[in-house]
């Protein structure tokens, strides 16, 4: 397939077409018409449509959005909150920034529809502190939406009132994790806590709270427009809809692309990204970001499809694809990954705080070829322990790339074990 056939513009259809600062432009392209329709429906019917669409969260964990909405809808407690997670911080990801900077009203329309479906009266737009331009654009869009009566009291004369406040973070990757995000919103340092209970039952100020990713909210108006059944026809059985893909690393045309789910990684790299510069060879590709799995070139035929990925014990996460050519040292890359998580660890639990440090020490031993056979076993035990016993997703996912290198590039480790033979040499 060539690049035109591969691109499927739905969430990005307004990019470059509208002025993101202009609500009129958005409305001209059909914007807010789904909200106008939704507000006359019963909340349960909206949620049902989302359930039929089988939309799964785009923040990384792929949790079914309809089920999350239903849980909040049915939860006891007042008030209820809704939060848009725009804390994007996973290395390799920039899709949410593009969505905010190019079409902010699409996100806002999605949030309002969800809020209406569960009679939620207050929402937060949680933007990472570094995204200054995006925050300004969203702030402006919220003001415009308020002025037009899409936000505020008695929205479109429906009797329903709802508003959204912007909250900017202060630089901590872990705050993208739900409980850490909630702690930050409440003015505490963003340390994670055990789940359950989940935020849908016990979230902000212990009230039912719906938290979704920016891209997830963007899908909502499109689902209502197409109907859940039609939407479900896009993509694959286990992964419906389109996906924004952030392509970066050693690649000719890095950037943001929207493709139908089910597209192969190879097509995205070769056709959309035009391959690796200077005709070098691909050594390794990392999916989803620093916490995601790595694959060798021989596996690039794998598709963006949950079921297919699960067979290999992996997922495509939030949709980043980081391409690395044959000049990289794989262990050096692993070290960068683990350094990131060690730096971003909130320090609350031992396996993540201390375990990642130990992985770094072990990686150094392999890098300078002083590692022993037993270090390999130690590394494997550490990975297992950290993934199983860390409190939150940061620690649980941090060793993924090391684990996958042990699976697909094991010789990178075994070749660097110090033997008496190599000592003589």
């Amino acid at each position, binding site marked *: 397939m060539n690049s035109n056939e591969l691109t499927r513009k739905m969430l990005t259809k307004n990019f470059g077409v509208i002025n993101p600062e202009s609500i009129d432009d958005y409305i001209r392209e059909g914007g807010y018409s789904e909200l106008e329709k939704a507000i006359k429906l019963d909340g349960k019917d909206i949620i049902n449509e989302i359930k039929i669409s089988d939309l799964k969260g785009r923040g990384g964990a792929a949790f079914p959005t309809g089920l999350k909405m239903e849980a909040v809808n049915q939860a006891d407690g007042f008030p209820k909150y809704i939060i848009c997670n725009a804390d*994007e*911080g*996973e*290395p*390799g*990801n*920039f899709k*949410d*920034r593009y969505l905010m900077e190019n079409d902010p009203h699409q996100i806002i329309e999605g949030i309002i529809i969800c809020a209406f479906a569960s009679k939620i009266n207050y929402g937060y737009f949680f933007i*990472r*502190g*570094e*995204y*200054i*331009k995006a925050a300004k654009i969203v702030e402006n869009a919220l003001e415009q939406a308020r002025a037009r009566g899409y936000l505020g009291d008695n929205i479109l004369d429906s009797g329903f009132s709802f508003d959204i406040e912007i*909250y*900017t*973070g*202060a*630089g*901590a*990757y872990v705050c993208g994790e739900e409980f850490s995000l909630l702690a*930050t*919103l*409440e*003015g*505490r*340092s*963003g340390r994670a806590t055990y789940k359950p209970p989940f935020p849908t039952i016990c979230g902000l100020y212990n009230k039912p709270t719906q938290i979704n990713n920016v891209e997830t909210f963007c899908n909502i108006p499109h689902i209502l427009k197409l109907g859940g059944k039609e939407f479900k026809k896009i993509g694959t059985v286990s992964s419906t809809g389109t996906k924004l893909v*952030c*392509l*970066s*690393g*050693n690649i000719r045309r*890095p*950037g*943001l692309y929207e493709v139908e789910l089910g597209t192969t990684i190879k097509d995205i790299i070769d056709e959309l990204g035009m391959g690796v510069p200077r005709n070098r060879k691909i050594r390794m590709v*990392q999916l989803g970001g*620093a916490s995601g799995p790595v694959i060798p070139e021989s596996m690039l035929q794998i598709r963006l499809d949950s079921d297919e990925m699960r067979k290999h014990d992996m997922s495509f996460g939030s949709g*980043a694809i*980081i391409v*690395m*050519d044959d000049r*990289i040292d794989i262990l050096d*890359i692993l070290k*960068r*990954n683990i350094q*990131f998580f060690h*730096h*971003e660890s*909130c320090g609350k639990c031992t396996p993540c705080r201390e375990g990642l440090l130990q992985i770094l020490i072990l990686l150094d031993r392999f890098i300078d070829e002083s590692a022993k056979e037993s270090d390999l076993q130690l590394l494997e035990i550490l990975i297992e322990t950290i993934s199983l016993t860390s409190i939150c997703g940061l620690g649980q996912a941090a060793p993924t790339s090391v684990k996958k290198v042990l699976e697909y590039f094991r010789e990178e480790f075994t070749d660097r074990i110090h033997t008496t033979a190599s000592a003589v040499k």
Partner: protein
Amino acid sequence: MKISEILDKNGRTPDKLISSLLEYQNSTLCNYLTEDDLREFAEETGIPLSRISSVASFYSLLSTESRGKYIIQVCYDVPCYVNNSVNIVEELEKNLGIKMGQTTEDELFTLEFSSCLGCCDKAPVMQIGENLYGNLTRDKIISILDSYRRKNNEQ
């Protein structure tokens, strides 16, 4: 701006604490929060000093150490790293005459590593204050730093 003014504007509830700390810090000359600042925040808001200190030390955009007027944050995550961010750091260190984490003697620049800045399609990337700079080369760095020096001289 004074701390009390910022709090009058933003409110004194815990949920407004982080943004007020940030706003105040960014208005100071040396981009950081002193012990006295934190104490004043505690007195003004009634939030315990220990909690405010823990917040101030947790978030990377907040600092309790004196920094330069312009903070240069260089992204060091993998997409930038495989696009030679190492060379960028070298060039910056050479040009500024300092090492990573340090502040220039004239207190104009502080050089810091940063996690992914969400611009990996323009790797390698750095941020100075509110401005992002991508597709960096040695030449670009020289001209960017010069422009900040000029801007400072004009002020």
